[in-house]
């Protein structure tokens, strides 16, 4: 299972990539592998305020439907429309297939997220 350096991870298998005060959010390679073939995604609305730990959307696969949670608090700036047409992009490369970008409200929240090593330990359990 691929875990990338430079990203921050949650216990619920989301990742964020930080560029200044903008965070891209996606689900991890481990999560997509557990889900199997993803066929629908339900993304948040642009402009929505989402708190860390709140449901941001749903990913649905051949096998099951799972909510995903926002790793961090902020306002949704943009959603990845490509995923609505081609949700399999998440299976192909979970770290390229970001779900939404948000302007983060509280940069200090990042310190509560996991780095590569800790997340690797979590998924090996």
């Amino acid at each position, binding site marked *: 299972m691929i875990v990338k350096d430079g990203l921050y991870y949650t216990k619920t298998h989301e990742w964020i990539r930080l560029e200044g005060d903008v965070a891209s959010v996606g689900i991890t390679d481990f999560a997509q*592998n557990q889900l*199997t*073939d993803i*066929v*629908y995604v339900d993304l948040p609305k642009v402009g929505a305020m989402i708190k860390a730990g709140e449901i941001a959307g*749903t990913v*649905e*696969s*051949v*096998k*099951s*439907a799972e909510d995903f949670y926002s790793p961090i608090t902020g306002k949704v700036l943009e959603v990845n429309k490509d995923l609505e047409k081609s949700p*399999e992009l998440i*299976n192909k490369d979970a770290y390229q297939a970001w779900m939404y970008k948000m302007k983060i409200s509280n940069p200090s929240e990042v310190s509560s997220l996991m780095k590569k090593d800790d997340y690797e330990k979590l998924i090996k359990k």
Partner: protein
Amino acid sequence: MRTSLFEEHVKLNAKMVDFHGWEMPIQYSSIIEEHRQVRQKAGLFDVSHMGDIMIEGKDAQDFLSYLLPTDLSKSRIGKAIYSAYLNENAAMIDDTIANKISEEKFLVVPNAATTDKIYAWLVKNKKDFKVKISNISSKMSCLALQGPLSHEVMKNLHPEANNLDHFALTNVSEMYPSPGLEDATIVSSTGYTGEEGFEFIIPNEYAVATWKKLLSNANVKPIGLGARDTLRMEKGLLLSGQDFNEDRDPIEAGVSWILDWDHDFIGKKNLEIRKDNIKRRFRGVVAEDKVIPRNGSIVKLNGKEVGILTSGTFSPSLSKGIGLGYFDSDLKVGMNVVVSTGKTEGKCLLSKPRMV
């Protein structure tokens, strides 16, 4: 538990999951790609977790025809007969293929999760029947080759199998000799995908070589249990333990064609009482919205609950959600219903169980 092909699955990078205590491949690459491979070309499944029980003796045919609602004397030797065990209440315990090797010899194939239960059920009901019941599940492997190119693939390996009728068998013990297992070593024109295909029931020691040989054909790919499930759902085929679990009779489950009323069988009395008053029917639903029906989803018509689903998935062939379940028997195929998964809700069309 592991099948003889476990190492092969690992080598092929399969994603392994627990399936009723068995470590089985759910997928090798992608459920959707594997599904299409079987519909368009050919795929190979390891289904060695399924059971194999030999029933032999003077009364073998009478015994099994009492345990099953199907009169096996009506089928010729060499047929693979689909049926289901009923309890006294006429509820289905498990569905099965009964391979008629001779009138005194049958190889029955129970589902993985129910093999021990069915073995115990057979032994319990043996009573005065002159039969020997042997559970040889741990000695046999089962490989299923499925898809429109299966015949082509069999040309080199087992040309004789291409002459089989639908649901028939041929003994292949000369090619896979193993002392004591000769009668059980068969290839049958059966499967669980709705496609043409063959199932090999062979001694464990031949599993790896046969698996590799079949996969050496460029038109054959390994297929996991994930696609097996989507393939069977599209065709409306029942999954034991999920679509029925000692709670449905064969009429409501849509397999009344397995019933022969002119012989005695366990559950007959109760089935006769119920047969003219069946309140629910097994049907399919095909989504018109972005909803994926799931096991446990509620089906509504004008706000009123009219059915419950026991299976559901995304159909790779239709690129839509599909489901199977039990509906009020006065509903008609083609009606618009609403499926509610608890998470989402969407419009669906009521369909025959076979949706593809």
